[in-house]
């Protein structure tokens, strides 16, 4: 039973159609989500159109104008090599966004698939997946990154692989626990009794119920993924210099933090904007996709 009027429940024929409509309805009704989409699009546009938005070459060093604070010439200042921070953030968005979104996306898909599988099937499948998760969790992300370098060699795809690998266990854990709880719920029991295939139950009945949690987790880990790129740079898995990335800029900023705080601050803010935008979208999505979710009582 829902506290919202039951007459609201409309059942269009196809899932994708429901998705699209719900999305559109939520987006237009939800100012926060609109803002989120706008913010995110803005970042994407800046990334794609970096040469337009930043007239300066992000690689161009001006050795005599290093660590300049924000000023008309360099409106976010310059880094330790006299490179324009704004240009580097704009260009850096390209790789950082790809790394963050793709790595978390992959981890989300694989992690929640394994988590649901583990939670739903139980038995030896659960044991095997849990053990593998434990092994993965036992490696600090740095060591995990090193493993990937050792076997695959350094490159952006491998970097993404390393970050995904480090993040997958988080999603396994987050999706497994609620799956176990759901498995016992009546409607899942009913599905089983009706002879639905396990795959169908997992995809059509369990996933829609737990994916708000997964979305929240995803938005949480995005910031981490973008920053992990920086720590992996220490062990040689980072993006090659002088290509700018937000994580790399933050790492450089750490060295100079007492000399100039802007080096670490601005890329961090850039990450904040993306995370903020994605969270606004994520929350909106959740409202759109989860009709059960009700307003708080006050």
């Amino acid at each position, binding site marked *: *039973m829902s*506290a919202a009027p039951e007459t609201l429940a409309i059942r269009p024929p196809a899932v994708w159609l429901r998705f699209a409509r719900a999305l559109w309805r939520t987006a237009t009704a939800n100012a926060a989500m609109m803002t989120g989409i706008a913010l995110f699009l803005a970042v994407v546009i800046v990334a794609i159109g970096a040469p337009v938005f930043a007239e300066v070459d992000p690689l161009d060093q001006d050795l005599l104008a290093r660590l300049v604070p924000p000023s008309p010439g360099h409106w976010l200042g310059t880094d330790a090599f006299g490179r324009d921070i704004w240009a580097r953030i704009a260009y850096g968005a390209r790789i950082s966004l790809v790394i963050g979104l793709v790595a978390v996306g992959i981890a989300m898909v694989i992690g929640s698939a394994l988590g649901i599988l583990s939670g739903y099937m139980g038995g030896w499948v659960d044991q095997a997946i849990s053990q593998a998760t434990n092994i993965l969790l036992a490696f600090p992300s740095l060591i995990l990154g090193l493993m990937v370098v050792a076997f695959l060699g350094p490159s952006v795809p491998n970097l993404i692989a390393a970050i995904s690998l480090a993040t997958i266990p988080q999603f396994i854990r987050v999706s497994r626990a609620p799956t176990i709880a759901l498995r016992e719920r009546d409607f899942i029991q009913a599905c089983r009794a009706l002879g639905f295939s396990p795959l169908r139950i997992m995809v059509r009945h369990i996933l829609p119920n737990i994916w708000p949690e997964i979305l929240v987790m995803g938005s949480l880990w995005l910031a981490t993924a973008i920053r992990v790129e920086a720590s992996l740079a220490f062990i040689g898995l980072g993006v090659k210099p002088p290509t700018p990335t937000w994580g790399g800029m933050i790492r450089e900023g750490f060295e100079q933090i007492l000399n100039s705080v802007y080096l670490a601050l601005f890329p961090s803010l850039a990450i904040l904007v993306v995370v903020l935008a994605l969270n606004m979208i994520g929350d909106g999505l959740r409202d759109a996709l989860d009709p059960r979710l009700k307003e*708080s*009582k006050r």
Partner: protein
Amino acid sequence: MTDAPVLAVRGLSTQFRIGGAWRAATRNIAFDLYENQTIALVGESGCGKSITCQTILGLLPAAVARTEGSIVYQGRELVGLSDAEMETVRGKEIAMIFQEPMTALNPVMTVGEQIAEAIRVHRRCTKAEAKAEAIAFMDRVRIPAAAQRYNDYPHQFSGGMRQRIVIAMAMACKPKVLLADEPTTALDVTIQAQILAELRDLCANFNMSMVFITHSLGVVAAIADRVAVMYAGEIVELASVEELFAAPQHPYTRALFQAIPRVDETAENLQAIPGQVPPITAFPEGCRFAPRCPMRMEKCAGRPPRLAAADPASPHAVACFLHHDLALEEAAE
């Protein structure tokens, strides 16, 4: 039947905030509930039965729902009371039980605690007293080995047993009015009968009146004294059980009766009536049933009919121009 109703509902309208605008989910609900009487609210899903009950207890979130009209309980106006004031009414004076016993209980609290809590929030008593009383109520609703099961969690009970616990919880403070929101819908047929018998029994023993929500006319016959048939947020017909069953007047009520043989406990759409209940955002201007009504007249689309008796001497009221020409005074919002 005594003179003053225990609960008098007048012109009750519950509005929801949807897409920034307030939309009325129910309109002009009015009925009286007398002592020891049971009134049934009947209608399809989404007709506003549950919303009406939750409005009476003030359970809808203020951020998205608002109430107009009047609810008088034993001479006391409930509309406009603060939440703190309502807390003294809920459970103690008016209690409620729900459709879904599987989810209505807190999974991390023992059932005993949950019953004892209902006692302790309304009465000063020690934990031990509350516990003893809770066990007594569990006994009273026929839960086997009540004392031993006090510390069990909801998931350790069957659906029927859980509904008994919900009932015990509602009865714990001996309320004057019980709002029962489809309490048997989710249960097996055999269990349903037991629970209905239980509720009847409790009403009689505790001098309690009941608002019973159902979409099943069969259940209505078994438990109610009077019936209010609801459609799209309005009461379209209000009569005693006998009168309604003998001579249903509203085309919708008739359609409901026609549909009986084809409705089982889970089917919610009336195949007998073409079309669907309109969504809250698209209620028609005049009679809300008009688009689906086989006896639709031209004027039905113009103004909404008022709930009134065709024969002034009879308490059998209906909102239909087939029976009288009275229209709702205020225009539709």
